[in-house]
């Protein structure tokens, strides 16, 4: 009887429509009004504002945030001379990125002219390493890759996200949007079910956020470590019992572009600290 009651309450909590659309704490959250007419939401809020003070306080202090340890390591790699060209990433990256270094965090993923497709920061770093530095590529979820991407995006911290989704990026954008609303897996759920229809509501004892990615790579308490957007996407797919594409898969890149666009206007918070 108690199990049925609990089940009913749990389902009730999850199914209640837009019960608590405002972010969790005290009303001081920054709420962005989307400017793109295509945007499905009326308010854009960072995951930061869905968490309690205990978690927000850590992100606010670079000497308490363990993600900064990975950033420090990334900075070392950034300055390290590697590969046949005898250069460090620092010396060549701005050319590879095709945009000024302190804007990278705000504009990636983007259509990359040299690569001929929409690329994530990880992909551009490896393109740079292989074709310009003559160095070995990093594994997607390695400490080196996480450190370097976090260090680069940190240079844009505080800037507003402005990923471009038109022109040569349009096809990838449409694919990303399609994926966001497609039901997957045994639990037959889409990203939208949680992050569009139920942000502000609870799943178990966790308050659902809008699933924004303005803080990635970030430290998750669940991981006790830093992880990338693709790790997060794959984890979610695993939770709804769907099969997971590989890191860097074109579908994950499309989903990342689309999800980043949903957060346009939010400040880059890399490296964020989350639940």
């Amino acid at each position, binding site marked *: 009887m108690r*199990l049925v009651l*609990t*089940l009913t*309450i*749990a*389902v009730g*909590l*999850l*199914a209640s429509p837009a019960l608590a659309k405002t972010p969790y704490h005290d009303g001081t959250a920054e709420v962005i009004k989307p400017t793109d007419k295509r945007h499905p939401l009326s308010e854009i809020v960072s995951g930061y504002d869905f*968490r*309690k*003070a*205990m*978690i927000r*306080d*850590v992100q606010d202090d670079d000497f308490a945030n363990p993600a900064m340890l990975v950033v420090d390591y990334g900075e070392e790699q950034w300055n390290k001379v590697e590969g046949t060209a005898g250069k460090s990433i620092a010396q060549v990256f701005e050319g590879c990125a095709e945009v000024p270094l302190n804007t990278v965090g705000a504009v990636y993923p983007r259509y990359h002219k040299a690569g001929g497709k929409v690329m994530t920061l990880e992909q551009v770093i490896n393109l740079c390493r292989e074709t310009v530095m003559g160095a070995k590529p990093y594994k997607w979820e390695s400490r080196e890759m996480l450190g370097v991407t976090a260090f680069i995006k940190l240079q844009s911290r505080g800037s507003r996200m402005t990923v471009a989704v038109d022109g040569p990026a349009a096809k990838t954008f449409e694919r990303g949007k399609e*994926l966001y609303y497609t*039901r*997957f*897996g*045994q*639990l*037959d*759920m889409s990203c939208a*079910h949680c992050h569009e229809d139920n942000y502000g509501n*609870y*799943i*178990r*004892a*966790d308050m*659902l956020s809008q699933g924004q990615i303005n803080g990635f790579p970030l430290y998750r*308490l*669940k991981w*006790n470590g830093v992880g990338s957007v693709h*790790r*997060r*996407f*794959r*984890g*979610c*797919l*695993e*939770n*709804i*019992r*769907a*099969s997971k*594409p590989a890191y860097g*898969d074109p*579908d994950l890149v499309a989903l990342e572009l689309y999800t980043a666009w949903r957060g346009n206007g939010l400040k880059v918070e890399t490296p964020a600290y989350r*639940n």
Partner: protein
Amino acid sequence: MKHVLKMTNISRRQALGLLGVAGAAALVGMPAHADGAGVAAKLKSLTGGKPIGAGDITLDLPEIAENGNAVKVAFSIDSPMSADNYVKAVHVMADGNPTPEVATFNFTPAMGACSASTRMRLAKTQNIIVLAEMSDGSFKQAQQTVKVTIGGCGG
């Protein structure tokens, strides 16, 4: 995604219910089966059975911790921290963890103030007990309950 397995087409309501079942035990406020005995024994061995006073200890702990992996634990103790009157050590204990000891902080007058902040792992909702050992051999304690919720999902 071409490799997605579309298996049993269960309804969304059923799916959310599945998640709800697993979450039944994770709702806030479930009474923890606290191991008061473990902490009591630990306190006795630290104080040698001496009486433990109260006062002067301010605890900074969240009422509800969204995640038990890294719960803030901080304290400050009002003390002159002079050579003849200072806090020697502060022991932090958690009565619902597999073992109660969390950390011990050893202070010296050179610090000028008695406080510390760190992050601890809490297995579940439980009481945090802070025992201060003074330079004159006396003891003080304070305690607070921290509710711990288990996260939702998201890989």
